[in-house]
């Protein structure tokens, strides 16, 4: 009830037209009509209290109101209802009025229509009367004209026949005339028109004569056409016209195809010969030499990667007729474009054209297509072989952009052929050539890199060989200042770190520039770069594996070779180079390899479809190489010092020697060398850890061979059966000291390297001493020497006890080998050593 009141309130608030509609709506609702004018079934309310429902029971409603509402509410309800009734009344009046007006006007219209129809009916009657009279007249006229019409038709038929006959009779003359005027097309056209008729009436002698004449003429014409076709001097258009006519003259299509193709072939072959002429001079021996010279010269050019303009690379080779871009250009413009032209016109003539004509039934298009494919494949193969020969001559690595551009053009032009000849494998073969060229290029770059690496090593070697006394050297040599300035002059090359950094930088630069050059192959604007090969395999297998990884492997390999070849007497490799390479390999292991590979992967977006060498493998290899080189360095340096010591021991007569007054010069030399090696290693390797040493290391006396114990040792009585060693002390000492591996692996730091070298040297000293016999002064000299060595060598090694132990052994052994073991006083030894 409330909602209804609300609704009515809302109605009263609505504006004019809206309200009207609403009112209509309500009325419709009341009469049980929905929008479509149908009685809604579900909406019917059965509530007797619904004032709008059809089952409204006033009595019931009133009772309900009276029962439920208060007086005030009832009053309100009443006013509301009165208001609603009033508004409904006025609505009803308006509607009744409107409908009445409409009804009046409708009645008027109907009346007017009735009048009009009556007038129209009369006119229609008149019209039908007129029509019937016209029909009568027309029938009459046609009846009179019938005879004449038949006659005219007959006459005109005779006339056409006569015209045709006349054409036939005139045909030979006309054909002759056409032949004279070389209007072959017209002649063929005329003959074709007459041919059927002549064929049909050939049993009549007169027609027979005409036919024969025509045949003879057409034979001549065909002959002439063939001649023209064979001459080949004519343009492609003429040629195609020729072929068309001949085809119409029932010339066998196969023969024509062959002729056409052979004609085209001769022209294309002249193109090919032109191309071949350009690369002809190369296969001769001198040219090969030139080519190699050119290779080297352009390899030199590659060193400066900025210098890449094709002109400069073309300049140093005056023998080469054209560069590859020109060559390919010429090939494209002459051969490929005329090939395309041939294909187009051929297809037009024999394939497209024939498909429309009557020839289609004879499988001519298939036959023609087959011939064309064979033809194109044959010629393309020859063209490709030429291109490949030319590409192979392109050995210089400097002008890669030129090659890439040439290949791109080559590839792009072949796409045209692909479009014209969809089934052909020519473009695939072209792509293969491009791929082969690219792989070849990568190989060339690899070898260029390798030779660059070897060249830079040679440079480094030379730099190491030329002694330089630069400022850096003396300042760095400050570490070895304990021996004065004697260090810088020996083979500690002054700028070892500089050499290392310049070497690694130049290698890295070279790799980068090579990568940049190779990257051209995958540039976006190059047509073949989106081939799957160049997207995947070229990047991963070609560039990453066979260029970058191979190069890194080569570096490690060649480094290792330095160790292997130089087995004899230190070998020819300067030790500094070994050290330098070792550091280089170590740097590669720590950073450079991963950097290069990351760079490659980023530049080429390598997607690893196939397994590739992981960084760790390469790093392990580099580390192994570094280790080997460093071990070898230790060995070589150790052997150099060993050799000095050995010579000094072997060449001296130790029995008859004078009392020692000085440290022998060779010992000073050993210490000097060791110091300079220390400086050299210190330039490239970190210090490393050493065991803490006592403060008085240099002052230490020999524990085993001190004078107090000496008595006990040599007083050991001669007891032949005693299964005990007499030199118990020395053996107990050995028992507790660890076994020393002399030629063992070293760590990547200075101390470890120096320890290795000193170990080797002292062990050699020991073994040599044991092979000699000493006099008293010989022993004393060894004592002095060993003390001197001890004073200086302990500081280089990780564990000074090692030096002490070995020196003890040396002195002990020489005492054993001494005919008259009378050791020198420790204080005297010290004085002598102090004096230098």
């Amino acid at each position, binding site marked *: 009830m409330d909602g209804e009141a609300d609704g009515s309130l809302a109605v009263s608030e609505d504006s004019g037209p809206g309200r009207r509609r609403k009112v209509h709506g309500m009325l419709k609702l009341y009469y049980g009509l929905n929008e479509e004018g149908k009685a809604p079934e579900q909406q019917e309310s059965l509530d007797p209290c619904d004032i709008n429902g059809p089952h409204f029971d006033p009595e019931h409603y009133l009772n309900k109101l009276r029962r439920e509402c208060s007086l005030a509410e009832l009053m309100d309800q009443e006013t509301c209802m009165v208001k609603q009734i009033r508004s409904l009344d006025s609505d009803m009046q308006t509607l009744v009025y409107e409908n009445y007006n409409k009804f009046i006007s409708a009645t008027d219209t109907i009346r007017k229509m009735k009048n009009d129809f009556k007038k129209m009916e009369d006119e229609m009657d008149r019209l039908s009367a007129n029509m019937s009279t016209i029909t009568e007249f027309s029938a009459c006229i046609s009846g009179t004209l019938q005879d004449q019409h038949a006659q005219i038709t007959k006459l005109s038929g005779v006339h056409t026949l006569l015209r045709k006959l006349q054409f036939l009779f005139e045909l030979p003359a006309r054909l002759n005339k056409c032949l004279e005027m070389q209007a072959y097309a017209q002649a063929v056209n005329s003959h074709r028109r007459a041919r059927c008729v002549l064929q049909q009436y050939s049993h009549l002698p007169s027609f027979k004569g005409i036919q024969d004449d025509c045949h003879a003429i057409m034979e001549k014409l065909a002959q002439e056409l063939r001649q023209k076709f064979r001459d080949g001097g004519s343009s492609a258009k003429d040629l195609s016209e020729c072929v068309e006519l001949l085809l119409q003259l029932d010339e066998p299509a196969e023969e024509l195809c062959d002729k056409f193709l052979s004609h085209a072939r001769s022209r294309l072959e002249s193109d090919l010969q032109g191309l071949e002429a350009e690369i002809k001079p190369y296969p001769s021996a001198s040219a090969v030499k030139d080519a190699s010279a050119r290779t080297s010269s352009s390899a030199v050019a590659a060193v400066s990667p900025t210098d890449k303009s094709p002109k400069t690379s073309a300049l140093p080779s005056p023998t080469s007729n054209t560069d590859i871009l020109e060559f390919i250009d010429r090939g494209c413009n002459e051969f490929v474009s005329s090939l395309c032209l041939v294909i187009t016109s051929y297809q037009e003539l024999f394939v497209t054209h024939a498909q429309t004509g009557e020839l289609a039934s004879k499988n001519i298009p298939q036959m023609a297509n087959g011939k064309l494919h064979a033809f194109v494949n044959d010629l393309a193969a020859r063209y490709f072989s030429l291109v490949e020969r030319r590409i192979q001559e392109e050995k210089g690595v400097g002008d890669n952009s030129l090659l890439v551009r040439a290949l791109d053009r080559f590839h792009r032009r072949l796409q045209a052929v692909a479009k014209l000849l969809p089934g052909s494998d020519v473009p695939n073969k072209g792509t293969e050539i491009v791929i082969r060229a690219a792989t070849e290029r990568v190989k060339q770059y690899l070898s260029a890199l390798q030779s660059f690496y070897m060249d830079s090593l040679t440079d480094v070697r030379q730099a190491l060989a030329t002694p330089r006394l630069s400022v850096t050297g003396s300042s760095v040599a400050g570490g070895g200042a304990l021996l004065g300035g004697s260090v810088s002059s020996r083979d500690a090359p002054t700028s070892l770190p500089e050499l290392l950094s310049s070497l690694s930088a130049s290698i890295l630069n070279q790799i980068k520039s090579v990568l940049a050059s190779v990257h051209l192959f995958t540039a976006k604007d190059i047509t073949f770069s989106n081939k799957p090969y160049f997207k995947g395999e070229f990047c991963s297998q070609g560039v990453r594996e066979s260029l970058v990884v191979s190069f890194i492997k080569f570096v490690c390999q060649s480094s290792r070779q330095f160790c292997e070849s130089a087995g004899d007497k230190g070998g020819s490799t300067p030790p500094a180079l070994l050290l330098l390479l070792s550091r280089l390999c170590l740097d590669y292991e720590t950073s450079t390899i991963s950097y290069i590979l990351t760079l490659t992967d980023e530049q080429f977006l390598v997607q690893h479809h196939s397994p590739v060498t992981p960084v760790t493998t390469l790093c392990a290899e580099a580390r192994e190489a570094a280790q080997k080189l460093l071990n070898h360095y230790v060995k070589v340096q150790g052997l150099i010092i060993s050799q000095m010591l050995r010579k000094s021991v072997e060449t001296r007569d130790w029995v*008859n020697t004078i009392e020692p007054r000085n440290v022998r010069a060779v010992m000073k030399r050993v210490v000097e060398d060791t110091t300079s090696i220390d400086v050299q290693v210190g330039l490239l390797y970190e210090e490393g850890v050493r065991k803490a040493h006592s403060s008085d290391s240099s002052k230490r006396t020999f524990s085993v061979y001190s004078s107090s114990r000496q008595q006990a040792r040599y007083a050991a009585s001669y007891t032949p059966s005693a299964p005990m060693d007499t030199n118990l002390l020395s053996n107990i000492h050995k028992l507790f000291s660890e076994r020393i591996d002399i030629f063992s692996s070293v760590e990547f730091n200075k101390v470890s390297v120096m320890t290795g070298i000193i170990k080797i040297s002292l062990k050699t000293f020991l073994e040599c001493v044991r092979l000699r016999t000493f006099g008293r002064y010989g022993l004393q000299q060894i004592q002095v020497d060993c003390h001197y060595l001890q004073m200086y060598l302990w500081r280089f090694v990780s564990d000074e006890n090692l030096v002490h132990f070995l020196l003890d052994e040396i002195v002990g052994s020489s005492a054993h080998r001494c005919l008259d073991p009378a050791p020198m006083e420790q204080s005297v030894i010290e004085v002598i050593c102090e004096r230098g």
Partner: protein
Amino acid sequence: MEDDAPVIYGLEFQARALTAQTAETDAIRFLVGTQSLKFDNQIHIIDFDDENNIINKNVLLHQAGEIWHIGASPADKAVLTTCYNKSESHCFLLSLAPFTASLFIMFLSPSDSRVVSCAAVWRMPSDWETGSHESPDDSAHNPQALELLCRLDDSTHGNAACVLWEPMGDGKRVISLADNHALLWDLQESSTQATASSTASLEGKGQLKFTSGKWSPHHNCSQLATANDTAIRGWDLRTMSQIYCIENAHGLLVRDLDFNPNRQYYLASCGDDCKVKFWDVRNVQEPVKTLEEHSHWVWSVRYNHSHDQLVLTASSDSRLILSNMVSISSEPFGHLVDDEELSEGEDNHQDDKSKEPLKDSVVSTYEEHEDSVYAAEWSSADPWLFASLSYDGRLVINRVPRALKYRILL
């Protein structure tokens, strides 16, 4: 299958010279020569009782000087050669005036005191064996001296480095290597007289000196191999001329050589470059095989007499290494060579070898020594037993591991 523990014997002097008693094929017996400058040197005869794992030893005096090399006659058990040093003037003075020795030494002019290397053939006293059995203590206190048979000295040819007996010969021929000469001696009158029948000498720049040598048991004992500096040379004894030369066989000094007892062209060498190399003397450019197991100079290399895949090397890194060189051995390892397969030819053999899972390998490393090991020898009686001698006088007797032994035998 426990392997027997090594047996260790200590000498009281330093020692370098070790040999097996070649003529003795029943008892396991080694001879060791000592090096002492001050006392009388000795030759220890070491008998090893295999069953009880006990060493019996006898000592003979070698008063001539310290022993650098020792060789046992292949024919006569009692005959041996030594190379020894004697310091002439010094010994002389000591014996002359022991009480005023120091005084005299003071007055020694440098030219007077001299150490010379000599070589001699000795005979052991006939009763050394019985004496030792009766009272070992007694013999120890009062050792018998060796009986000098003859000296292999020739004043014109300098210091002897080693003396080689003719392998498997009748004990009548020896070769001594002295400085740059190789001398072939004929021993006559039961070895009491030696005449140098022929010599060969090394010509070249500088002071060339033989360091070691080996008489080849092949080719009717007509070949000799010597080492000097880094080169190995082969000599034909009939003409005393060089037949091959391996220049730079080792990066540094070549220390020792040995011939493969079964393959006539195969030769092993070792040297200061820590390597052991195996050569086919028909191709001297490249070694057939190289071992690099030692960490210091290798002083001795020995093929096992019967199973030539077993190679023993001794080094101054105090280690002894037994290697199993299957690939260059005369008997394909672990492969029973029966007649059928032999008849099938070379290719088949190659195939079998490639199928062979076992490769050349180090069998074991013996670390019983604490000083440089200068000599190692296989026993002549027991092919599975060997001795090694380190500078501090320690002799160690070891056996081939049983597992390997059975693999080779079965």
